[in-house]
């Protein structure tokens, strides 16, 4: 008896009990859905980060200072220690295209006329930072001007959605109020640098001059200078990024103002985006292992469900087993029929789970605005797992069916 014949008989048996079969494979469906959803989201998140950080970001070295006992996301525990002089000096290093300082400006509220909303901080960048491609409308801010760029989530905070040309009033932490002109709106609310995390909250971007006001007396110059929490040292190209990172760390350790300003037990961290991606991958791998663990439990439950329903099915079809044997089926033919049926149930569950997982994953990527990546290799894994779950759970019931005595079976009511 060939496989095609077994599969055909299995499908007709399964069609005969649609609801029961559906409920039976639910465990498998849930397990596979969970894994596929997660690997889809994980893969898409990675692809999104590679897109954000990979491309032109591949030349970036992200620099901050971090207390040695602090671990966490990029920038965790960062202290304002990098002076304007440090920025200029790093800019002169070999293979460095430019250095962008980054700091946060504490706010209490932002207002559009009488329309006021709370916002705790804005991000300040040295240089104009945004390229025309990044903007839905308008242009980037200029250093030294009272200008701001908003992301779409920030523009939408107000009753009248803000556009380039509108005026925004920033209430600073210390109570002062400053009017800024909105000169541009970004085309996406996703993070604009690795320190912003993955949320899509409203964000206001400002030039460090004049808004960033943390100042110290420069240890080298003796004059007041701004100090920044984080820097982006941008190499001429991805090939130079390793060397630039080394030279940056050497400079910071040996010649920088930051080395003087930094507190004890605080070290400098210089991380390339590739290293950042590795960290993200580590986190994703851990989460994937966890979700897979949960899915395995679900699959075990699913397997028990299939085994149970196959036992019922074998009992119900005792007479059919008798008929098959009477017309020449060998024990292994009967075994094959029931094993195939269990395997088909497993595969159907896996297939439905894969489609459902992809759908949920796709909805997730649309929701968080990530590129959608189909994890093909996991689809294959899912189907193989489906077959395995089916075969394993079908073994005992099928063996039961195969050793049924045809005489008793033909008499079975």
């Amino acid at each position, binding site marked *: *008896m060939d496989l095609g*014949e077994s599969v055909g008989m299995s499908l*007709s*048996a399964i069609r*005969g009990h649609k609801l029961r079969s559906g409920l039976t494979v639910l465990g498998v469906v849930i397990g596979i859905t969970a894994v596929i959803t997660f690997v889809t989201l994980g893969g898409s998140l990675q692809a999104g980060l590679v897109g954000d950080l990979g491309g032109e970001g591949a030349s970036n070295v992200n620099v901050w200072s971090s207390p040695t006992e602090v671990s966490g996301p990029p920038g965790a525990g960062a202290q304002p220690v990098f002076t304007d002089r440090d920025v200029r000096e790093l800019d002169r290093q070999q293979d460095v295209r430019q250095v962008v300082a980054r700091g946060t400006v504490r706010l209490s509220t932002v207002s559009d006329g009488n329309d006021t909303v709370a916002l705790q901080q804005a991000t300040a960048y040295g240089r104009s930072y945004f390229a025309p491609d990044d903007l839905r409308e308008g242009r980037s801010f200029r250093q030294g001007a009272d200008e701001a760029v908003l992301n779409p989530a920030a523009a939408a905070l107000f009753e009248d959605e803000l556009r380039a040309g509108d005026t925004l009033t920033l209430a600073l932490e210390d109570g002062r109020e400053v009017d800024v002109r909105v000169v541009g709106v970004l085309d996406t609310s996703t993070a604009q640098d690795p320190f912003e995390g993955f949320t899509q909250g409203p964000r206001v971007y400002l030039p460090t001059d004049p808004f960033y006001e943390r100042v110290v007396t420069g240890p080298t110059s003796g004059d007041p200078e701004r100090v920044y929490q984080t820097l982006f040292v941008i190499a001429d190209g991805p090939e130079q990024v390793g060397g630039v990172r080394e030279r940056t760390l050497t400079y910071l350790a040996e010649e920088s103002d930051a080395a003087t300003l930094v507190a004890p037990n605080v070290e400098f961290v210089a991380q390339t985006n590739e290293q950042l991606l590795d960290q993200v991958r580590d986190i994703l791998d851990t989460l994937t292992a966890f979700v897979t663990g949960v899915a395995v439990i679900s699959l075990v439950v699913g397997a028990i469900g299939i085994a149970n329903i196959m036992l019922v099915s074998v009992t119900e079809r005792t*007479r*059919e087993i*008798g*008929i*098959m*044997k*009477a*017309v*020449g*089926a*060998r*024990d*292994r*033919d009967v075994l094959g029929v029931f094993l195939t049926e269990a395997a088909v149930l497993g595969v159907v569950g896996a297939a439905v789970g894969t489609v459902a997982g992809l759908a949920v994953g796709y909805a997730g990527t649309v929701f968080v605005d990530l590129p959608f990546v189909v994890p093909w290799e996991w689809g294959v894994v899912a189907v193989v797992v489906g077959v395995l779950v089916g075969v394993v759970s079908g073994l005992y019931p099928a063996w039961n069916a195969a050793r049924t005595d*045809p*005489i008793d079976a*033909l008499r079975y009511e």
Partner: protein
Amino acid sequence: MATVPETTVESAVSLRDVRRRYDRGEPVDALAGVSLDLPRGSYTAVMGPSGSGKSTLMNVVGLLDTPTDGAVTIGGTDASSLSESERARVRGAEVGFVFQTFNLMPRLTALDNVALPMVFAGVPRPERRERARRLLERVGLGDRLDHLPNELSGGQRQRVAIARALANDPAILLADEPTGNLDSATSDAVLALFDELHTEGNTVLLVTHERAVAEHAERIVHVLDGRVERVETLRR
């Protein structure tokens, strides 16, 4: 008690001193030494009260049951030394069962039911479908090929079962009370079909408790207490 006939090459089925003992608390001899020879092309009926051993006889002839002792030869094959899986193969090839309760696969069409024995015999799909179609036409159901059993009348179901029994061109047709679930008009039609099949050269063994049904055969084997009580040859 009948004399022990010699086994000849002409036999479709031959039983030599077959015993079947069941151990249910105390040993029971369902067959206590039966010898029977069914020549090719013969039509034999088996009659006997319930508990006489005629069901066990059917099962042994159909290779569903294995004798405790004695030899069973079917279609020229000595079945006593066969493994379980070889017995299944010989059963599929040499025995065509027709049951009182039809025993069709409920989810298979008439055509697929008739083709089923050929599936297990390894006949290629186009060939077995073609043969199944011709067999259904032969029993007068050429217009019911794609009907499920529950869409057919009792008489039609039994015709499908007969067509299925003929699928692998078996050495013997084994019919166990084939008219037991049919009304008299339908019974007559089914028995007429067996008569025709016999005329065409098929070997038929029919178990019944009705004298009128048994009289369609050439001879009647009367079974009692696990033995052949007498063999009655009918003249027509």
